[in-house]
């Protein structure tokens, strides 16, 4: 799962970008280092589990700074399920589970 948060100026310039990945990072449990491994015959246990846990809420907070002379930004939030590191084709390699755009402005 990937949570993308980007903020853009009204003329489309990117002011902020964050990409967070939530997944099981499998190791081989053979005390041979902390290298992540692929493949069912190699994987055993988790080096890290930062997935969304059942009946729990994960809160991510972003501090978005406004570029000089900018009073408004469009913040795009997109949560995707994707197989690999690349987004690829939506509906084939990745699926958008949630998407919204919100405006932030300075006082």
């Amino acid at each position: 799962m990937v949570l993308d948060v980007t903020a853009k100026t009204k003329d489309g310039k990117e002011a902020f970008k964050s990409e967070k990945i939530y997944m099981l990072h499998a190791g081989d449990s053979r005390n041979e280092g902390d290298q992540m491994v692929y493949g069912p015959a190699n994987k055993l246990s988790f080096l890290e589990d930062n997935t969304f846990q059942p009946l729990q809420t994960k809160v991510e907070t972003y501090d978005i700074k406004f570029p000089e002379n900018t009073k408004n930004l469009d913040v795009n939030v997109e949560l995707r399920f994707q197989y690999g590191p690349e987004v690829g084709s939506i509906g084939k390699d990745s699926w958008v589970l949630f998407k919204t755009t919100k405006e932030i402005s300075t006082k």
Partner: protein
Amino acid sequence: MRFLKLIAVLFFVTIPLMAFAAEKKAKTVDELAKMYDVSSCKQCHAKIFAEWEKSIHSKSLIGTPRTMGGVQGAIKNWMSFKHSGVKEAKDVTVYHWTTTCFKCHLPQIEDATDEVASQIAEAYMKNDKATLAKVNINCLVCHNKMAVTHQWRDGKPEKDAVYGTKEGTHGDKKYKNRKKSATMTASVMCGQCHQGPLIDRPVTTQCSTLYGSYLNAYLPSGGDKTCQECHMKEVDGHSMFSFRDRNYNDPEMVKRALNVEVDVKKGYKSIELAKLPPSAKVVVKITNNAGHRIPDG
């Protein structure tokens, strides 16, 4: 008298054993497919059958097709492992499969010969989807082969029965009886396959880990639903969300599983840190309402 008793005991012990040994094993992939033929189910359960045909379960050797890549990778790994007994795909036996991938992806492989095991391994290495599509997780796998989870207590599944939630007769020439499975509506039914890692095997296998998450995270957090309650909908008492397609491709299922809230705060400029530009906070809250971690398998 003692001699006669001994003969009687031997008779009653050996005859069933001989019958068991003589149980016919499939010698080809086609024979295995025929052994687990579910075409007659379609006549009365057309809607369920159509849903199953579209499902990942009906493509259990191919998957999305990530399964195919995963199994190919496993075979290559076995070839590289010194003690696996596999140097080429043709060396793969029923034992290799039942120890690993096919414990879940094709449990009926145990009703086939090593020749079939080898044919399937070679089909994987040749990207032969047509062969791999012939066998799968179908009606008979869940409603017969895997339908009894407590076999030392309840015995093996009966050959002429389909297991569900009721007892009675069943309008099929081969599967004439309906039997009640003690666990058909319990999570363990699904957990038989959607679990892991398999650490008790000569080649440890970690594919799915979902049932562990259900047991050790969902239930302790107060969850009280079964897999079937979330993943099966009351249509003909059977229809599964996951039978339609992958869950993440089903907006209704995603909506049930995940709640996402985005809160934006008004931007401000710090008086004390005057050199910093104005900033605003964006808070994203993601709640997992599913009975297991997301993502998991």
